[in-house]
């Protein structure tokens, strides 16, 4: 077996040193009835590298990939071009095969990278501080709600109807068990968000208002009024960003008064990967640092006075505080944070702004083209690189019909909001820098053909 260095001679010699007759002697504490005599039945035996590679290549070929087709899916995961050097750097063994940097003297590479990542995320979100990453945007969102509860000592959160329904459902799962109350509503297919509902719902029992920016339908609006009302009542504003590239073009949530800003960092460096691993971003005002979940990297000095970095404020964390910790999170998304940070470093201020302008420009062009298709209405007034179409027919079968025509044409609201008939004709369309003018044309004409048919699929 190519991954096992011990030879049979080694094993025999080592058993001799241990003073055991056979390997079974070392498993003596396992009750006899639980000890398996040989390899588990019904499973294949070991396989060569070539055989395994062939198996996966065959499975890979069964999937329709984003790069090879006109591609317009978003709704919390975005297709962006990732520079080749990002993957090269995250595959360096010193990053890839390192452990969590608990021994800082021999982990400065990871630690300095995390310090840079924290600073990048804090600046992008317009916050004072950021942590060293969470699992993904959806779990970061619940952690923010939970954190707001600890800060305000209240347990009622008001969730915008523009918050990603998966994020809402993650919060619902957790709230069911923690006893938190969530004020939830489904979105309406219109240009108007539900900020009036949010403003009306905030009261002295509210821990936080949670608003996605841009929201699930791609809409964007100024959060300042919601922040002001929340603060007036002692509540916090949590902003959720699922498309960080947007912040190269539009104001940061922190600059509009958000107290905690969380997000999904997948757009930069990470790739689609069928949903994971991704990287949760988590930033907030500095006065709330002690209530943050997850790892934090901080600057310090070594015994010679040289600058260095360590994981710090760990008295918040499970390995120190156990049941009193701010979260149970341990392993986070370090390597994806590295990918995010490398991509962001390659872009820089100028590159991010250019990338955002390119995304917005292409999205505006695509919206204009799609709006000309009979049976299609663009509901958004304002948007960044994602907008919602109201089709003349239910969108879910349209998406399948588009796939039959080799077009990956967006995410149907019928899939995201099953059972809500007022939303079933909604199609969320994302347009990033990978989309070409030809892709837009192919999408528009396929959509036109499908909507003109008597029956869809």
């Amino acid at each position, binding site marked *: 077996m190519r991954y096992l260095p011990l030879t049979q001679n080694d094993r025999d010699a080592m058993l001799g040193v241990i003073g055991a007759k056979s390997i079974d002697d070392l498993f003596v504490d396992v009750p006899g009835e639980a000890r398996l005599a040989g390899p588990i039945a019904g499973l294949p035996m070991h396989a060569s590298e070539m055989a395994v590679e062939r198996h996966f290549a065959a499975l*890979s070929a069964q999937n329709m990939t984003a790069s090879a087709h006109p591609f317009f899916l978003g709704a919390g995961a975005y297709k962006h071009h990732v520079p080749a050097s990002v993957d090269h750097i995250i595959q360096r063994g010193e990053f890839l095969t390192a452990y969590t940097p608990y021994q800082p003297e021999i982990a400065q590479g990871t630690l300095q990278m995390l310090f840079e990542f924290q600073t990048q995320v804090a600046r992008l979100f317009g916050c004072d501080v950021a942590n060293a990453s969470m699992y993904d945007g959806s779990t970061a969102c619940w952690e923010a709600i939970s954190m707001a509860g600890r800060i305000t000592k209240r347990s009622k959160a008001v969730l915008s109807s523009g918050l990603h329904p998966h994020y809402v459902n993650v919060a619902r799962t957790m709230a069911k068990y923690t006893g938190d109350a969530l004020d939830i509503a489904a979105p309406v297919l219109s240009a108007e968000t539900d900020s009036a509902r949010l403003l009306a719902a905030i009261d002295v029992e509210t821990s936080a208002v949670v608003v996605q920016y841009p929201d699930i339908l791609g809409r964007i609006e100024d959060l300042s009024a919601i922040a002001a009302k929340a603060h007036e009542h002692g509540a916090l504003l949590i902003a959720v960003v699922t498309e960080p590239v947007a912040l190269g073009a539009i104001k940061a949530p922190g600059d509009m008064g958000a107290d905690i800003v969380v997000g999904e960092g997948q757009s930069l460096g990470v790739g689609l990967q069928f949903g994971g691993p991704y990287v949760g971003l988590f930033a907030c005002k500095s006065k709330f640092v002690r209530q943050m979940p997850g790892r934090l990297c901080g600057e310090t000095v070594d015994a010679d006075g040289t600058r260095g970095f360590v994981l710090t404020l760990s008295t918040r964390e499970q390995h120190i505080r156990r049941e009193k910790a701010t979260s149970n999170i341990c392993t986070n998304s370090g390597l994806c944070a590295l990918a995010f940070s490398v991509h962001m470093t390659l872009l820089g201020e100028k590159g991010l702004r250019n990338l955002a302008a390119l995304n917005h420009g292409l999205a505006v062009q695509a919206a204009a083209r799609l709006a000309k298709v009979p049976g299609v209405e663009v509901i958004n007034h304002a948007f960044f690189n994602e907008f919602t179409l109201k089709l003349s027919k239910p969108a879910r079968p349209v998406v399948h019909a588009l796939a039959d025509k080799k077009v990956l044409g967006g995410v149907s609201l019928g899939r995201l909001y099953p059972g809500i008939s007022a939303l079933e004709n909604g199609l969320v369309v994302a347009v990033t820098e990978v989309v070409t003018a030809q892709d837009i044309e192919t999408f528009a004409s396929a959509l036109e053909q499908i909507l003109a048919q008597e029956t869809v699929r």
Partner: protein
Amino acid sequence: MNVMNPSGWKPEITSATTDAPATDAPATFTGNRALMLNEALIFEIGTLETTGVDLADAPQITSRLGGLERSRDIGLPGLSEPETVRHYTRLSRQNYAIDLGFFPLGSCTMKHNPRLNEKVARMPGFLDVHPLQPAETVQGALTVIHELAHWLVTLTGMHSVAMTPKAGAHGELCGVLAIKAALEARGEKRTVFLIPESAHGTNPATAAFAGFAVENIPATPEGRIDLAALQARLGPDVAGVMITNPNTCGLFERDMRKISDAVHAAGGYVYCDGANFNAIVGRVRPGDLGVDAMHINVHKTFSTPHGGGGPGAGPVVLSEALAPFAPIPYVTRGAGGVMRIVEESEAADERPQNFGRMVAFHGQMGMFTRALSYIMSHGADGLRQVAEDAVLNANYILRSLENVLDAPFAHAGPCMHEALFSDDTMAEGFSTLDIAKGLIDEGYHPMTVYFPLVVHGAMLIEPTETESKAALDQFIGALRSVAERGRAGDPSLKTAPHYAPRRRLDETLAARRPVLVWPKSELVIEPDVAVAAE
């Protein structure tokens, strides 16, 4: 010849105990020392005008940003591609890693990460597909999830598996929520989880996160759960137990079946922390021990890389009793062999008791491909060999060092996949931390230190199966040397490491005056009242 070190290998003591570099070494202009290269922060070397990405010009359009255009700079420095590659390459060289050397971290299973896994994970059909694509366009990806699920269920002898949890602690949460849902379905409100003091910190944190109170399960003097004490505490308020097996002292819980039976008889459930599955994979099935839920750290047992702290994945295998409550979404094989994704829309009919969604999307696909690649490479026979070699290596270390380091449970019999030592034999004023830092100078990542909490100055060593005998012999020689210096009170050990990219770092300063972002400015944060009170 020393029978405990049959190869006779030993380190060059003379150089290892020399404190400073040779005195004729001149200071350098840069502060670098040949291949030891320092690197500034990107904020100190980048500019707002530099970019390493060439993009097409944005089309001329009328903005539809609704008046929300950003008006001030973000403050993100950029680097050109050559500067970027050099920056991160230099940083990488300040990291220890499995690719460089032995990583004996107990409880962490730092084994070799095969590069085949990286290759298959990057195949476009897995890397470049969106989680919300129609199921008919991702049949291969769904098949990977389904195949891995089959392996996990079969290897553990359990009923089913929840694939979506994102890491071990998230898997714990999944298991605990399934237990909570099962109790609610029975109309019972049980509020307490029993957890041994030796447990990973995530166990009590998870139970608390899910709204349970945590109580301690006492241990016997030989480092195992005290069955009688546990039985005495079981009752109608106990939701379940969270047990690590093999436990964090490196010992198999012999009474596991009796523990499970007692917990079940009292109406509770058994959660097993699967962090130590590497000791028994292919040889013991947790399902045969009465376990109701167990997470699997694929970044431990199944070799997906730790990546400097993640990402991992934490699929949770479940007993028949808990299976109906597993979270959504999940993957099944439908009519005609077509793979299906069951989400909110279908789950209401097909698994009405599901406890809900834990994450956006379908879990850690990139880790699933890697884990399945590893598992298929080993096969049922190779995985069994993994457990055997991991346990053999740990016992070899235990018996080779027990005459220089105190091994508190060594008299009780063999260990499983990790060997536990205490700092009892050290000279006055010398402790585990000094041993750990001394090992750094020897070119090793330290073992897990001060965990489990039940042993004074614990040193937990997990060699894994991917170390050769020669590598183990060299490590044994190095640790013996460092331990002897600790016993002798060698003052140079107190100031180790001497040869790492940094000397000992001031963690107290970092916590007292937190600097979490650049530029350096101390945060104004409220004092940590809770900690001060402890």
